[in-house]
């Protein structure tokens, strides 16, 4: 162990002073568990996101288009890989345990990846709205994250998310400039995905949120959500789509968009019981994991692990 702190007060003073914690530091166990849980959920979300997109990749309309979409989903897998490696180094669970917990339905991941992409429009909506939400969250974590290994890989993850955002907006632009059927398809996708994407940020942060106190997160959920709303409401409208929020209004005084009251019941239901597509997707992933176990076993043999 490299560094240790006599008391939680000392440790928090170190964090408040901008200190970066490294994997081999003797960090307080509560911090270790909190940072681990946060990274594990991020990793799971990247992987589940890739599995959501995977259903539609073979149907991508166009050969070079398909290559671009593949590269994006490959990045999500890559993010999962980076995050699972960093999470494993915290010594709470091994990479295999994390994956097996995920495939056994024991782990958490972002609400949006409990839903199914039912049309190609959904695929584009996810690439645009959900990736944007994820990017806003990650930028806020990166800005002031106290866990060094996480902060360092976030730099790479955020750079790659930038490519995804541009790809997503480019595809949405083509749809916006396209046929009536295309626009209708995307409007329906927007109706399905706008609220889940907005809820990716979660309900308002609690005053005693330890993730904020320990500089794992640097901004409150409601601030991040608002940033997304201010950016995407005008953008979607600019492309000629309707934002599916009945209470939406422009507050001329505050110079900002207000989406009206948020119904959190679907989010709570999804996180408590799983969403409409969780069981299928996790089941398929678990089947695949079992079917390819022989490869991992053969590669591990003779190496003592």
């Amino acid at each position, binding site marked *: 162990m490299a560094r240790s702190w006599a008391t939680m007060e000392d440790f928090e003073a170190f964090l408040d002073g901008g200190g970066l914690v490294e994997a081999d530091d003797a960090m307080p166990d509560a911090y270790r568990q909190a940072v681990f849980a946060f990274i594990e959920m991020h990793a799971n979300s990247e*992987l589940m996101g*890739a*599995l959501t997109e*995977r259903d539609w*990749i*073979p*149907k*991508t*309309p*166009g*050969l*070079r*288009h*398909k*290559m671009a979409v*593949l*590269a994006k*989903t*490959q990045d999500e*897998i*890559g993010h*999962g*890989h980076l995050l*699972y490696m960093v999470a494993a180094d915290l010594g709470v669970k091994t990479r295999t345990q994390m994956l097996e917990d995920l495939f056994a339905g024991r782990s958490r991941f972002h609400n949006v990846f409990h839903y199914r992409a039912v049309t*190609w429009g959904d695929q584009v909506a996810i690439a645009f709205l959900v990736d944007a939400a994820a990017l806003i969250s990650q930028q806020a974590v990166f800005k002031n994250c106290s866990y060094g290994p996480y902060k360092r890989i976030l730099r790479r993850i955020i750079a790659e998310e930038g490519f995804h955002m541009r790809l997503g907006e480019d*595809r949405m632009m*083509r*749809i916006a400039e*396209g*046929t009536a*059927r*295309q626009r209708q*398809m995307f409007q329906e996708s927007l109706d399905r995905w706008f609220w889940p994407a907005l809820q990716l940020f979660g309900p308002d942060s609690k005053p005693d949120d330890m993730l904020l106190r320990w500089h794992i997160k640097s901004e409150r959920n409601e601030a991040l959500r608002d940033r997304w709303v201010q950016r995407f409401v005008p953008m979607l409208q600019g492309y000629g789509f309707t934002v599916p929020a009945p209470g939406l209004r422009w507050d001329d005084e505050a110079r900002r968009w207000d989406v009206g009251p948020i119904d959190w019941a679907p989010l709570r239901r999804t996180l408590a019981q799983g969403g409409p597509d969780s069981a299928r997707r996790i089941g*398929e*992933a678990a089947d*695949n994991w079992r*079917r*390819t176990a*022989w*490869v*991992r*076993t*053969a*590669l591990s*043999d003779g190496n003592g692990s």
Partner: protein
Amino acid sequence: MSEQGAIREFLLAFADDEHLMGQQHTEWIGVAPFLEEDLAFSSIGQDELGHAAMLYELVLELDGIEPTDTAVDLLAFGRPSHAYRCCHLVEYVTEDWAEALVRHWIYDAFEEKRWHLVAGSSVPKLAAIAGKALQEEAFHRRHADALLDKLLEAPQARKRILDALEAVAPMVPGLCEAAAGEARAVAEGATAGATADLLEPLVRAIDERFGRSTAAGLTADDPADGQARRTRRSGSFEPLMARMREVLDFDPEAVW
């Protein structure tokens, strides 16, 4: 068949193989045996799709059509089944990773030889594409070999791989079957030799790699003439192409 038609036919067979092989490899995204492999195999699939796109563009140029993305997609996804020239090995759909790996090794062993044949092509663009492709092939070959080196050492994995070889081997002669008109393409210098001549060295390489004689399996149940110069599709093709076309068919007027 005219010179132009012969070269076109030859290139289409090449492009369709690359397209379908890339498609099959990339079906493993998210479900490869482990994350690092997911990344590597997806890249290899992307490379093959990229080769297909470049070859389709070349076909369009020979046809005097501007090779826009839309024109490429029409060629890649819009032909009736009988107009495709892919071999049955790349049409074969599998959910067995051992079969996917064995096919990957065999296909890339063959590909390397096929690209070498066109590296000095009289069609300058084809020679340029070969230069790029051969650089990428080196990675594909090393990837498949590195995995097989390790997996063939483990008795249980070895058995799965040899079973997979047995399943895939009957489709190997079809891989080396030429589309009609290839002799003309050879005569014009578009390619340096007959694809059929690659079969014997390929079988030798397979035997060496997997440590067993595959020759007996080659004539089992899918003899090369079953493909009729690559004009006959296997049962896997239609459902696969229908799936790939789903969004394109949703709105034929659309640009995505």
